[in-house]
């Protein structure tokens, strides 16, 4: 489902105009991003939990230089789907298979 399809359906479901919906969703996303950027986790019922995690320094091989490199630590977003969502979607086929 693309972003515009999502906006269409969300507008329909909440009875708002598309532009209002787009703005509202944008606000929600920016609040979520802010929280994650601060390093705090966010739980959304029935969807799952967003957390951040610091990946440690990694040592990787760079074939172009025939040498090992240290990749600096990195903070990444983790998402764990809620158990209810996992159960519901466990055996439904998406068409991307």
């Amino acid at each position, binding site marked *: 489902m693309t972003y515009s399809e999502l906006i269409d359906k969300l507008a329909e479901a909440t009875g708002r105009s598309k532009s209002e919906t787009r703005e509202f969703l944008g606000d929600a996303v920016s609040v979520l991003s802010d929280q994650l950027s601060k390093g705090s986790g*966010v739980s959304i019922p029935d969807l799952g939990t967003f957390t951040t995690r610091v990946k440690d320094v990694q040592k990787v091989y760079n074939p172009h230089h025939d040498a090992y490199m240290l990749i600096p630590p990195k903070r990444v977003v983790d998402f764990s789907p809620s158990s209810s969502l996992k159960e519901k979607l466990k055996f439904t086929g998406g068409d991307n298979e």
Partner: protein
Amino acid sequence: MSEKITFRELVELIAEQSKQSQSSANSFIGELVQLIENGLRQSGSVTISGFGKFELRWMNERPGVNPQTGEKITIPGQNKVVFKPYKALREDVNRPYAKMEAKVLSPDTTKPDPDTDSDRPQKEKIEREEKEPNDVPQDEDKAPPTPIVLTNQEETPPEDIEELLIERPVPKKKESIPGFGELKVEKFEDNLIEALFSEPKEEEEEKKAVPVSTASPTEKPGSSAVKEVQKKGAMNWTWAAAAFLVIAAIIILMLLIRPAEDPTEVASDEPTEQLAAPADQALRALPEPAEPDPKPVPDPDPGEDIPADISPFDIEPITVQQGQSLWSIAEANMGNPYLWPVIFDLNRETLDNPNLVPVFAELTVPVIQDPENMTPDQLELVALGYLSVYEWMAENNPDEARYYLWAVGVFSADVLSGTENQVNQDDWIFANTR
């Protein structure tokens, strides 16, 4: 450790930001969650612009162990919900670490070599985009004290990093090419590892010996590599070049022995560290036997002799979507991302630069029934594709071009041997030595 905010706090923040009531924010999120679930069920993926993409990923059944009883069970195949954060979110989240950059290590140590410190900033510019070199992490201990967040559940590994790597248009040569190059790659790595760890002293001496012989007019791969090392001054290059030298010297020597019997006793009795000089002199005297396979070189210009319409592939036209690279197109349409040079070769009129694919460009993409077992004709086309990329790289990025010539040989040794007189000799020797 970081705190988590509750859903109530989140709703308050969203309501505040969007100047809506809390109840409408609450119901909005509820609808959003419902739609994400439905969208995942129907189409397998839901995109939220500026945030990320939720996807269903099918996990095949796999063996497992019941942790309570120790009994072996089969975990049935099932869908997994994964979230791929988009670039904006990734950058926001990674901001505290954004200034740090990758650092090159000498191959056999974890600690950076103090000798190469002065040259490192120069090298790092090659490695990554320009950033301040001050914050380079020395090792784990000096990681900045930013709060480390632990996850309680381990079911969702960080997909985003892997995705990023996969979507790079340039193949990573270290990985074995599935179904084709595995043996060669492993052999090379073995050689390298052997060279790095088992005979470091001999390499040191040989390295000293070679610059003496660079006065010879004959272009020798080792000497150019050594010059590069001196230019960049980095320890790891030295090691790689030394390893390369050992291999090159041995091969040249072995080839010399075959046609000309005379140098045999001399050469075989010489200790390793003196091999480079005689080999170099002999190479100057007898340039012909240096060819690893003295074929009559019958191959005509391999770039043109197979027109696209009679290619052993079925052709299908596609339109490039936003975010696609040749790499990802090859992965999606041909089943093996390493085959991307074929697309480049077939669409040479459309594509000037294999790293820049115009959005909505119309490309012809070959269809391969079985990427694991390709016919010799198909392998030859792939090799010609790599040759085409090599020619482009030779003009635009000569330092890295030789890796593509090497790949030509991985897919078809015949094509590679036919290119001998058309390509840079250093590159050709490099491709054949590996």
